[in-house]
């Protein structure tokens, strides 16, 4: 197992409040890593440090390192837009851009000037919509407003849009929590298919989803990583009392 993201001595603060305490974890390449824990434990905050969304909050401050392929993404000479191109995000609620379905997928490729001409863009849009399992449903209405799609379709559109900029890592911040069961299942099966090509990190608060998806697990409590490791070990034989209690549904 090869490490893709390595977090070293990470401490994070919102104003005076410390939200992450001395985090040291490794996230394996081309697997699904699930971050779980009770609400307020810092799991979303940890996820947000991976695409530098953490710093969008004005009060946010952080020490330590997040290394992607050995390079610290908080290093001085790192371009934040390059980090975010390399690390895609599937948000809690899908938020399509105020454009057509087609333009939503093209947008990221456009700003990074990734293709040569219209033909290539068109082909790429089809390709990524197919990967996201949306092509069949939208191929005849590509120029309709993205907001006209159902919530579940919007989330798949957001997946296609994120994949179109060719990231290596996909982050999911409870990506199915706003969706109905069938749409959730749809997104989950996409993520399972995609893990062969992408390193995936998912935050979830549903234990059953964690069990369905995880190859590897990070369990957090009160801003600290309590336990991290392969899913089989953490679920089958948790080492810490807190993890055991969480898995048994005691809190």
């Amino acid at each position, binding site marked *: 197992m090869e490490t893709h993201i390595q977090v070293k001595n990470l401490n994070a603060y919102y104003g005076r409040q410390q939200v992450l305490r001395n985090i040291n974890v490794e996230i394996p390449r081309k697997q699904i890593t699930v971050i779980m824990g009770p609400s307020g434990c810092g799991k979303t905050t940890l996820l947000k440090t991976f695409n530098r969304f953490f710093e969008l909050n004005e009060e946010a401050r952080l020490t330590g390192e997040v290394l992607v392929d050995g390079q610290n993404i908080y290093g001085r000479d790192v371009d934040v837009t390059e980090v*975010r191109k390399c690390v895609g995000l599937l948000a809690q609620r899908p938020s399509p851009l105020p454009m057509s379905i087609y333009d939503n997928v093209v947008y990221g490729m456009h*700003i990074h000037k990734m293709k040569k001409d219209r033909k290539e863009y068109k082909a790429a849009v089809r390709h990524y919509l197919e990967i996201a399992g949306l092509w069949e449903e939208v191929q005849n209405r590509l120029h309709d407003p993205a907001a006209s799609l159902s919530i579940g379709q919007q989330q798949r559109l*957001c997946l296609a849009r*994120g994949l179109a900029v060719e990231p290596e890592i996909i982050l999911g911040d409870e990506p199915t929590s706003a969706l109905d069961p069938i749409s959730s299942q749809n997104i989950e099966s996409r993520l399972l298919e995609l893990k062969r090509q992408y390193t995936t990190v998912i935050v979830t608060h549903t234990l059953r989803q964690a069990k369905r998806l995880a190859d590897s697990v990070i369990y957090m409590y009160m801003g600290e990583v309590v336990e991290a490791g392969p899913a089989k070990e953490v679920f089958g034989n948790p080492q810490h009392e807190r993890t055991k209690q969480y898995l048994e549904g005691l809190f």
Partner: protein
Amino acid sequence: MKKMKKKRFERRHLMEFFVKSIMQTALLIVAGALGLILWAVITRGLPSLTWDMVSQVPQGGYYMGKEGGILNAIIGSIYLAAGGTLLAMLLSLPIALYLKTYLGDSKWGECVRLSLDVLWGIPSIVYGAFGFALMLTLGMRASLLAGVVTLALVEFPIMTRAMDEVIRRMPADLEQAALALGSTRFEVALHVVARQTLPGITTAILLAFGRGIGDAASVLFTAGYTDRIVTSPMRPTASLPLAVFFQLGSPYPEVRERGYAAALILTVIVLLVSFGSRWLSARLAKYTIK
């Protein structure tokens, strides 16, 4: 199932009926007032609304009921309102963006919003007097430019507050969605914020234009009045609201009728602008996120 009671005898249903009736009455009064205004302006103005009215300037004897029209006032009003709106826009857009980007809901932000609301409430004759005092200080005479500046002052609080509301309603998720794809802040503003808020900003601008073109008091001292079509920003200009005002005050019945015709022209312009802005913002809003 128990046998259901008849609904109309219950007290709470009576209450609902009562409150609903108040709402409907209020709506009826407002709609009726609008209808009456249109009816009055059309029935009195339409008979005198000839082609000459909109294609000629006042000839000798116009103000005693002889030939001529008010093209000078139509063109003057369009210049005044367009100039004022443009100038107000140059102030409003940066202020609205500054409010959103840097001040937000902070104490200073609320302070600025309160000031704008106060400015909104100030009667336009006060702006007129202020513009007049400013003109005298600068040694200017009544002119199109002075009128434009004063109208801009009348319009800008309306425009800024309307834009502020539109920009504030922009969902935060949208910006983050674009940032997550690796956009720069500038790209987010250009591609996402602009697209999302453009319909509302268009409405704000045209709302202010509508207010500006109908305002008489602010241009009374500052833009003056003349029977010629204005050719230079430093010359005085006629305007429709003042054309209405002067002609309605005439002792000649024909001239008073023409006052109504001028009011009709002004009303039609305002209606066109309103419908135009609705149409335009609906078109621009096709892709926005509700």
